[in-house]
């Protein structure tokens, strides 16, 4: 990333949202949304990093993935057109999905940089042809986008290894390989260390592909190093640097993995995710995904509930001396036929089965509304609790199936009702 680019993505993101908004009128199937904008932003950021070494000015790279798609459409059109090339009008009609001024602008840039050239070198030439090199570089960019620079480094190392193994190549070429690999590894280390030491776990997790196959990358680099040292002993100084770079990468990847694993460990152990993950999810999730989170929540704005009974219990209970056993938790509502704890689960299942059979009678399904109506809420919710418990008990073959709508019935019990059916589960025999 060029140094004068802001690290924060938010201003860029908002710009992109505006831009996407403009295009969404013209570009078919363009979904406007924060998730789309975030994905675009990630793509554009990789583009910028790739072309950074070639760009003359920081804002010279495209800032919008749509422009990349335009170039793709353009090259496809050129490929179809064959050796005759395309006129400017034909180009415009091929890219009709994009706004005219955007096409003109792109044509100007591509022509200037030689990605499209006049088909014949004569005045008033109207046909253009596309450059093979530019298209191949586009394929390369797409591959970088999909797999990141690290796999490129893998392939480079493999290729260099094959080339050097034959003992072909001069000492000068071998030295260049050593220097190139050393520099690439050092940059990789610098990025990893910065993420491990200073970055958030979330940022580290996003860049985790840097850690994939670290072992095989180290092995390959070591193999190249050995070949270099074997064939060109005079390069021992460069080899020394390469060795230290490999060792540094080994350390950095071990530390980064350790941090990732530590973070994963804590978030696995508790049902708490790191706050960055929530923020990221909230930003990237679609409306449906966000809604799904809330779908099975009964009470949220998660704040602990302090029941009056809990308060009384806490006040009554003096602190237990260490090592003594506390009583197992039990329901606040006393159950008349409560069983001793050791028989609890079986007795509970039996009781639930009895309740379920009583409710179902001879039929296989019964509407929940029918069961809850005509009683007061205190009774109704006991029934509901039993049905839910029976449905949740894996050993019992009953389930509650809810429909989506909620009926609001002021003055009746229950006053909010979701229609549902309590039914027998048919088990395959």
């Amino acid at each position, binding site marked *: 990333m060029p140094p004068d680019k802001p690290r924060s993505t938010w201003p860029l993101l908002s710009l992109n949202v505006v831009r996407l908004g403009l295009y969404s009128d013209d570009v078919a199937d363009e979904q406007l949304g924060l998730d789309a904008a975030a994905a675009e932003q990630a793509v554009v950021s990789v583009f910028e990093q790739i072309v950074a070494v070639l760009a003359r000015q920081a804002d010279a790279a495209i800032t919008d993935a749509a422009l990349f798609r335009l170039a793709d459409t353009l090259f496809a059109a050129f490929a179809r057109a064959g050796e005759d090339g395309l006129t400017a009008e034909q180009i415009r009609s091929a890219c009709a999905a994009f706004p005219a001024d955007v096409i003109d602008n792109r044509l100007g840039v591509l022509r200037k940089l030689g990605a499209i050239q006049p088909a014949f070198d004569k005045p008033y030439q109207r046909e253009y042809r596309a450059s093979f090199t530019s298209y191949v570089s586009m394929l390369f960019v797409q591959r970088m986008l999909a797999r990141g620079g690290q796999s490129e480094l893998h392939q480079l190392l493999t290729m260099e290894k094959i080339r050097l193994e034959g003992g072909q190549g001069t000492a000068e070429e071998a030295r260049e390989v050593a220097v190139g690999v050393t520099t690439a590894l050092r940059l990789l280390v610098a990025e990893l260390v910065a993420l491990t030491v200073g970055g958030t776990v979330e940022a580290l997790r996003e860049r985790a592909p840097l850690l994939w196959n670290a072992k095989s990358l180290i092995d390959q680099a070591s193999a190249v190093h050995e070949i270099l040292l074997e064939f060109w002993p005079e390069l021992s100084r460069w080899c020394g640097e390469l060795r230290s770079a490999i060792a540094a990468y080994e350390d950095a990847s071990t530390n980064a993995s350790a941090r990732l694993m530590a973070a994963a460990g804590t978030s696995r152990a508790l049902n708490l995710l790191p706050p960055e993950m929530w923020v990221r999810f909230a930003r990237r999730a679609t409306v449906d995904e966000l809604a799904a989170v809330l779908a099975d929540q009964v009470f949220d704005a998660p*704040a*602990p509930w*302090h029941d009056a009974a809990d308060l*009384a219990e*806490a*006040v009554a209970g003096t*602190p237990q001396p260490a090592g003594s056993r506390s009583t197992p938790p039990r329901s*606040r509502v006393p159950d008349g036929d409560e069983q001793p704890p050791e028989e609890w689960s079986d007795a509970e299942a039996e009781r639930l089965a009895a309740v379920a059979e009583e409710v179902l009678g001879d039929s296989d399904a019964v509407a929940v509304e029918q069961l809850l109506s005509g009683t007061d*809420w205190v009774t109704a919710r006991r029934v509901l609790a039993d049905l*839910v418990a029976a449905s949740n008990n894996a050993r019992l073959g009953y389930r509650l199936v809810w429909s989506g709508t909620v009926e609001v019935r002021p003055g009746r019990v229950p006053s909010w009702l979701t229609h549902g059916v309590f039914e027998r589960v048919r088990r395959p025999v």
Partner: protein
Amino acid sequence: MSSADAALWWARARTEGPLRVPSATSTPAGMLRLVERGGERCWLLPRPPDDVTPAVLRELRMQVLPVEHPNETSRVLAAALRCCWTDAQAGVWPGQPTTVRDVLDVVDQLIPGRGEEVLHRLGTGALRRLHASRWLDVDDEAQRVCLGPRVATWPDQDLPTLRELCRELPSPRPGREPDR
């Protein structure tokens, strides 16, 4: 207020918990409105029908949100209730302001023999948690404790239990400096 507006208020309350709004705001359907002592602002809380509280989660054998140091937190809440709920015949909300010292003094009497430092550390942690979940309103600067809007969501049938609890709890010892 249109039903769309009411739905928005509900969604806001779902994400943020109790909402503190200017008193001029009209009450959305199904929400509880609690005017603060000053009268300038009021709290809006979702009021589920039929006096249902999150306690029902336990009946449904679903997991409730865990509290850190549940017993200590409950004791501090009970102590704050003892200090703030002076008129036992009235509802819990809004109660009278009290001080952090008084609340901790009641806790200290409940469990005597703990050092000042331990009491302070556990007590402050519990007050902070209760403040965050809006059970209490704790002003650290002024060392002042008021009841938070959530106490108004205790259903009426729990009030006798709470009154009994307040009767049992010792009152704060006046003018007594915490032992150093």
